[in-house]
């Protein structure tokens, strides 16, 4: 502290850039739900309502984009966006308005569109192909068979998604598949990766099922830590080697499998490099940690990011509890705060699915 015996060191390191300790990456991620309306009712969905109540107007969507871009500029970060819903193509005019707006902004690095894949007609696919900064279209499948997938996503959705994949690939678009893992589909994950590779899908990623929203009725499908370990290990074994489909393993807990592999694992993004913006402007720390910390239209984004008590609680690793608190992997993992919250009621609790 003291520079020498009688002086107190006060000002050596005052600076103005985004602090590396808060936001270590050069990218900041916004998951942006432009609507909650959806034409499907997937039984594991984290949403509870599917109406348009409170949806931001087109003008407010663009104002929101300006706020996000201004923050990125101040922080010197590149922005990545997931434009999603509900089903974002239900607001296709607004979706394309936002996407084209981001196309024209230097701070927007790229965006993905997260869709259920049921609404892609030829004009929409042509319009998608014209977008400048569209990185991927992300669709979802829950298994390698129609039976397993459609039990969750509704009859016919497996075939519809495969048809969408083929249309999008034929148009030269990059396609990703996201799968939520739970007890009834874990035996189909590896066959699904093989199927997707054969379909020409570019990337595959998985998320752990968290029983919230509609999915709260499926609590018996939540995986144990041993089951999670087994799935992650098997996915790592097939994904670690180069293949046509890239298996993305940037998720907490993956890093435990091989601490020397920099291509897997990720720090929980809450409070470090991401925010979720809901259809009505409500901001969550993460979509799967649905605790409001502000509103993009009504509040200063800087105020939310710099002064949210919840974010500061999570940023301080000494606040974590259970085995996460003393884990040597805290600097690179921190567990999933959303899983902790939904399963234990405490977002600072240990990640109950960690196998360590």
């Amino acid at each position, binding site marked *: *502290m003291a520079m020498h015996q*009688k*002086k107190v060191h*006060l000002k050596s390191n005052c*600076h103005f850039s985004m602090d590396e300790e808060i936001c270590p990456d050069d990218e900041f991620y916004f998951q942006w739900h432009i609507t909650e309306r959806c034409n499907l009712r997937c039984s594991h969905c984290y949403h509870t309502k599917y109406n348009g109540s409170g949806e931001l107007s087109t003008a407010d969507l663009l104002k929101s984009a300006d706020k996000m871009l201004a923050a990125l500029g101040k922080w010197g970060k590149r922005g990545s966006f997931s434009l999603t819903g509900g089903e974002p193509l239900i607001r296709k005019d607004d979706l394309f308005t936002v996407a084209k707006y981001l196309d024209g902004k230097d701070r927007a690095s790229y965006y993905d569109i997260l869709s259920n894949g049921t609404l892609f007609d030829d004009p929409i696919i042509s319009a998608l192909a014209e977008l400048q900064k569209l990185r991927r279209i992300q669709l979802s499948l829950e298994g390698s068979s129609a039976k397993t997938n459609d039990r969750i996503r509704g009859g016919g959705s497996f075939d519809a998604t495969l048809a969408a994949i083929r249309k999008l690939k034929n148009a030269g678009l990059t396609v990703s598949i996201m799968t939520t893992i739970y007890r009834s589909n874990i035996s189909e994950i590896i066959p699904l990766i093989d199927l997707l590779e054969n379909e020409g899908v570019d990337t595959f990623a998985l998320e752990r099922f968290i029983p919230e929203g509609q999915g709260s009725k499926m609590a018996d499908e939540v995986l144990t830590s041993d089951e999670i370990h087994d799935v992650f290990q098997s996915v790592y074994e097939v994904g670690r080697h180069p293949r046509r489909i890239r298996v993305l393993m940037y998720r907490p807990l993956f890093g435990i499998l091989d601490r020397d592999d920099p291509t897997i694992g990720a720090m929980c993004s809450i409070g470090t490099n991401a925010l979720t913006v809901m259809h009505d402007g409500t901001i969550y720390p993460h979509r799967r940690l649905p605790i409001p910390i502000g509103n993009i239209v009504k509040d*200063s984004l800087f105020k939310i990011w710099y002064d949210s008590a919840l974010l500061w609680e999570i940023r301080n*690793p000494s606040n974590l509890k259970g085995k996460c608190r003393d884990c040597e992997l805290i600097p690179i993992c921190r567990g999933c705060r959303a899983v902790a919250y939904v399963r234990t009621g405490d977002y600072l609790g240990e990640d109950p699915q960690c196998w360590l």
Partner: protein
Amino acid sequence: MLVIDKEFALQLNDAIVLHAIPELDKFWAFNVESGDQYTLNDSAFYLLAQFRNLTKLSTALVEFADHFGIDVETAEEDCLPVLNDYYDQKFFKGGENEK
């Protein structure tokens, strides 16, 4: 430039918020309006934290000296130039000085 009068009272601008993770030796000030952020050390953080409420310079300097185990004259020598810098950067409310 802040007039160096120890009977002046200062209070942080409403836009300035202070946060710390002492366990990691990390201290910050943020301007929630402009988006500017400032990495501090523990002593600068402690000094600014004295002004979360309207506080006379003299009171803050005594607190600072006591906390860091230095005499008040040294605290003045250390702190006043720094406070001037922060004053110039609009850390403090304008017109809030009271004799």
